[in-house]
């Protein structure tokens, strides 16, 4: 029993240990940020690597907590994301007075996500969702002297509370209609009655809030703009990824029998999300708002793959989230470094960046090409597989809209590329001195962007886990 407990919950245990370690260091003698950060980075890396070993299928606490190799891999993706964030924003973290608290909050949120992905019942899911949201709202307020940061935090708290309420309502309806809260028990009780459909709509609305699916996306851009960039990247990559994973479980495993019903819902919301996200991204001037809208559009693409309800759907979504982690973090990393050193966040400020900073320009270009789905970057494969998975229903209208959205998204990604590589500027951003670990983070991201696509065994590995 104890062995089961230790092995099945290993990632959660490691994260808890790191949290307590940080807590003890903070209340005890304290430790300099310069020394503490590498330690935490090392432990996160160890957790990421450990995620690939001893992955067994099993459940604990009477089915509240379940895990298998695919779930372990999803957790590894999230751990990798947090590790990369700790590398990319090392400069900012070290200068923050309250770095241990920040890390504790981030890791608590990560812990909540781990439990959420592994949850086997609606109750566990709700609890862990709350654990994964509240610390992020506190993190959004981390630039203590900035008013806009508090505003972001407030917006996030309100919208999360609202969506939690809707979620609880949906859960209670579903419980009322099926008589169970266990993921394993619900599918057998589904018969498509109006009450159940209403419950599904409420559940999906809550997911839509968290994933910022149109029309529930309005909080996203403001929060991203106000929060520190490290937090924006956490929100856009780690939070979104974990919600996408649990949404997949909910739709496929729990609501699988109602596929015909939710397919249309997902399709309509997917089209709306892609179109609105792309159109709003066209006119953004601030790089953070720009990335916010672009990440909304990316979620629309994830929904294309999600709509398929097949093994291909599972593997393509997990694969895309992995690629999205590398690409979006690289873009946020570059924006973070520039904002940290010069305070410049407008796209116009990026003009002529290539003349002074070729390395980060190429990293940014790779990241944006990957987000736009241009080969040979991994984003090409990710998007293509999502579209192929979505096309298996034979809905040509849907995939044509998705394919046309690729063009619109290319337009605004090229805007940044054009500013960086082509436009002239009297006063370009000066040469930026990067912290070595930031550079390492960017190199890992760039390598991920190039290799994850070309090395087909990454996809095969995920596909074999998804079966």
């Amino acid at each position, binding site marked *: 029993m104890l062995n089961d407990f230790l092995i099945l919950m290993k990632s959660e245990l490691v994260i808890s240990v790191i949290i307590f370690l940080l807590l003890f260091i903070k209340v005890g003698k304290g430790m300099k940020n310069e020394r503490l950060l590498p330690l935490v980075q090392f432990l996160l890396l160890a957790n990421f690597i450990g995620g690939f070993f001893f992955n067994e299928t099993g459940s604990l606490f009477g089915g509240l907590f379940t895990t298998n190799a695919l779930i372990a891999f999803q957790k590894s993706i999230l751990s990798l994301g947090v590790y990369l964030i700790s590398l990319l924003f090392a400069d900012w973290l070290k200068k923050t007075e309250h770095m241990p608290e920040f890390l504790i909050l981030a890791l608590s949120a990560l812990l909540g996500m781990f439990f959420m992905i592994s949850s086997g019942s609606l109750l566990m899911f709700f609890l862990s969702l709350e654990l994964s949201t509240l610390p992020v709202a506190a993190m959004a307020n981390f630039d203590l002297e900035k008013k806009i940061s508090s505003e972001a935090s407030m917006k996030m708290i309100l919208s999360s509370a609202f969506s939690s309420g809707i979620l609880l309502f949906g859960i209670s309806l579903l419980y009322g209609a099926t008589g169970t809260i266990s993921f394993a028990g619900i599918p057998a009780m589904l018969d498509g009655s109006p009450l159940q459909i209403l419950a599904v709509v409420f559940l999906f609305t809550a997911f839509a809030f968290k994933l910022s699916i149109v029309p529930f996306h309005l909080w996203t851009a403001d929060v991203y703009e106000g929060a520190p960039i490290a937090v924006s990247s956490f929100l856009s990559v780690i939070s979104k990824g974990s919600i996408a994973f649990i949404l997949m479980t909910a739709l496929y495993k729990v609501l699988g029998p109602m596929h015909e019903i939710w397919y249309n819902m997902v399709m309509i919301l997917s089209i709306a999300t892609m179109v609105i996200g792309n159109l709003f991204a066209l006119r953004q001037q601030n790089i953070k708002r720009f990335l916010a809208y672009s990440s909304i559009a990316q979620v629309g693409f994830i929904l294309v793959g999600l709509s398929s309800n097949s093994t291909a759907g599972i593997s393509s979504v997990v694969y895309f989230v992995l690629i999205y982690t590398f690409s979006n973090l690289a873009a946020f990393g570059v924006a973070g470094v520039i904002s940290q050193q010069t305070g410049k966040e407008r796209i116009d400020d990026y003009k002529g960046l290539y003349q002074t900073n070729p390395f980060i320009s190429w990293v940014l270009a790779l990241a944006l090409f990957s987000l736009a789905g241009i080969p040979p970057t991994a984003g090409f494969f990710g998007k293509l597989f999502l579209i192929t998975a979505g096309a298996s229903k034979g809905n040509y209208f849907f995939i044509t809209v998705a394919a046309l959205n*690729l063009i619109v998204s290319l337009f605004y990604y090229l805007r940044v590329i054009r500013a960086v*590589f082509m436009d002239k500027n009297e006063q370009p951003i000066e040469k930026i001195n990067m912290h070595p670990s930031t550079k390492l983070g960017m190199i890992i991201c760039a390598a991920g962007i190039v290799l994850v696509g070309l090395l*087909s065994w990454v996809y095969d590995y995920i596909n074999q886990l998804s079966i």
Partner: protein
Amino acid sequence: MNLTLLILLPLLTAVIILLVRNAQQVKWVALIGATLQFVLAFVLLFAFRNERAAGNDAQMLFDLQYNWFPAWNISFHLGVDGISVAMVLLTAFVVIAGVLVSWNVTKMTKEFYFLLILLSLGAYGFFISLDLFILFFFLEIAVIPKYLLIGIWGSGKKEYAANKLALMLMGGSSLVLVGLLGAYFGSAEKSFDLLTLSQNHIPVFVQKICFPLLFIGFGVFTALFPFHTWVPDGHSSAPTAGSMFLAGISMKLGGYGCLRVATYIMPEGAKEYANIVIVLSVIAILYGAFATMMQKDLKYINAYSSVSHCGFVLLGIGMLTKTAMTGAVMQMVSHGLMTALFFAVIGMIYERTHTRQVNEMGGLLKVMPFITTALFIVGLCSLGLPGLSGFVAEMTILIGSWQHPDLFHRVATIAAAMSIVVTAVYILRAVAKTAMGPIKEGFTNLSDAKWNEKLATLILIAGIIAIGVAPFWLNDLISPAADVIMHKVIGK
């Protein structure tokens, strides 16, 4: 011969270019790489001919297949037939000429050559891939280098032109993507493999939906009317080598795709829409020719005449006869060489006179005889003088078109043939105004071509004359492959 060499060689060249330090080394690495590509293309040609002479009549030679994404039934499948070999040869010619011509690029030399070589990598991969997924992969690889080449090293409204080009080409490839997915899910085996798909009958209603998507998608690349609008802007803003690659290679990707992918795997769709293709291509031919008459800028002249010449390629495909299809491939090769040479010459003239306006030039034959002679040759090739490649290709297409006895095809053929007269008008006028007459002030001290420019010009002229004087070797190469495709379409 191992076909992966054609992909590995540019890749290796590109990597070495990134590693070396100074601009001089970059140039030489690029030149050596391009020369090796050139040699490799000829090795491929001779190996191919030897195999065929030895009686190996498999459809695709040098077949290679590696597993890549087995979950989707995607494999890295390479192979060549006569059409592919012809296109690979064309690419090698244009690449070496392009590298030589841009010897004077001083701005960000390393990045410039890196992108040029990356573009050639995309083109080679596209022409030799037999799996539609990797074909699409290579098609899209070639888009971004073009965008950056125009946007960074271009002139005039370069950002606008680069954006327009990238978005229109991406739009084309999005349509191609949807069409390919239709073929994938329409086939019984769920496969992207070209040979499997061609043996497999895709349901007719899928063909009727997907053929236009594929044809328009690839058509955007090859200036299908009314999706040709990126051509004049893109070509005129691009740097010399960029224009050469764009018109010489990139536009041929589209023609090859229309032929090899759209027509070959969706023959029912091709028959259904053949008349629309013919109408659009005749419009492109005539519209391109008349629009050229109004142009004063040498680059615009060649860009619009490219629309007209590429219309012939689509006309040859739309006619659905073996002769016309052979002619279409010949026209691709011929136009690729010719237009690359034209842009190279324009670039040389512009570098010396700093103008591309025909009215501002005159008498250049006196100061730069070599360059101007090349301009004469390429002009005569463009208007279809016998003995040069343009005549051979366009004549073959027209003969193939005439094989249809009905009124519609006859009218289309006659209308297309009339464009040659218009071509003669604008070419002769432009060339005469540039080369003859009294020499303008300030142009008297201009120098003639340097070694690199001479070499590039001679290589391309050699290709043009080799096709014009002895078209049979190209015909022998293409004709059997065109026969296979036509066999599939007509079903005899």
